[in-house]
């Protein structure tokens, strides 16, 4: 049983109506994590709106964002939504072998990953281990491949999923499928 009650739309505060409509339109349903967060409307609203931004096309390709999310969850040993993000990546056309290569150090020698992508994975692992210790050399490598807006976005995606992984696992909620509608309609 999750640590808090999961609220259905009928039992949620009226201030969440609009957000729940957006969430349902976006995913095709309201994820369990959002139902848990709904016990606190202001926290539910702000965290869901911020997280929605990480889930979809942005300054970097959506499929790459999903791989970054998978690497992040693995690096902090969190399991909330891992399967759902594998499915999103696969639905976005990422080969299964590339998704598998997210594991441990496989990506470092994987032919599926470009140098630009590998630099991002190095950043993920370093942030998970000690965010204080991201070297100037790694930043130089990152800047060689990505612009400032993209790097800000990557940093936001990584840290958002550190938050989501920790909160989701603490609550004990499960979202095996995040998008219950075709991704081409997102």
């Amino acid at each position: 049983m999750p640590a808090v009650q999961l609220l259905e739309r009928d039992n949620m505060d009226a201030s969440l109506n609009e957000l729940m409509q957006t969430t349902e339109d976006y995913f095709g349903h309201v994820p369990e994590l959002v139902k848990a967060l709904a016990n606190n409307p202001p926290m539910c609203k702000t965290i869901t709106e911020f997280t929605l931004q990480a889930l979809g096309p942005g300054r970097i390709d959506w499929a790459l964002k999903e791989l970054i999310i998978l690497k992040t969850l693995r690096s902090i040993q969190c399991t909330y939504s891992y399967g759902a993000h594998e499915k999103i990546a696969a639905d976005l056309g990422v080969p299964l072998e590339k998704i598998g290569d997210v594991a441990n150090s496989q990506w470092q020698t994987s032919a599926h990953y470009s140098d630009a992508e590998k630099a991002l994975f190095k950043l993920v692992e370093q942030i998970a281990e000690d965010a204080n210790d991201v070297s100037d050399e790694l930043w130089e490598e990152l800047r060689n491949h990505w612009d400032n807006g993209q790097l800000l976005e990557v940093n936001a995606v990584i840290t958002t999923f550190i938050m989501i992984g920790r909160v989701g696992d603490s609550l004990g909620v499960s979202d095996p499928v995040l998008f219950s509608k075709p991704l081409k309609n997102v």
Partner: protein
Amino acid sequence: MAQLPYIEPEEADEVTKQVYDKAEARFEMVLNIFKITGNAPEIGEKMWEIFFEILKDGQVDWVTKELLILKSTKMGDCLYCVTQHEAVSSRLGVSKEKQQDIVGVEYRNSPHYTEQEVAILDLCSHVVLNPEEIPADVWERVKKHYDDGQVIEILATIGAYLQVSKFGDAMGVELEDAFHGHQPVLFEVDPPKSKAAQKHLEHFKAQSS
């Protein structure tokens, strides 16, 4: 030095300017960590709303949330967050002695902490270290004092400060000049475990003196 440029108010786009205005109205200055999000305005716009919501009384008192912020960011050796929130906690009336007792498991035997504060600080440690191993007795003690809405606010505060502390540290966001001269409270009794964070602390102390 920060790894991405700080976008100053005069060079910021309209969305970012609005975020800065709101930040300045709440915190009396536009902090460096806000300025770095000017590199992707659409992200700053959503991200800071979480913190505007946390940093006030909600279903959980602001001062209680400050304890969670100090605990979670100290565990990640975030000099930037710890320093800022030592200052905020002091302004909200948390004594230096109480702040210092938050390190390690000192708070458990400290006369400055109530049973309910000990419960949520225990929860905080587990969330930061390994949410797969939150013992049933921790949940029991938390739930004795806090309802579901408050539990969400507690977890959201911990989660959001893990987010922002790692976000800022990864990009090397530095403490503002206004904090130079601040005497570290938590790191004084419990130095950073990270060697890189230790260097940041020494650099900060040199700037301060």
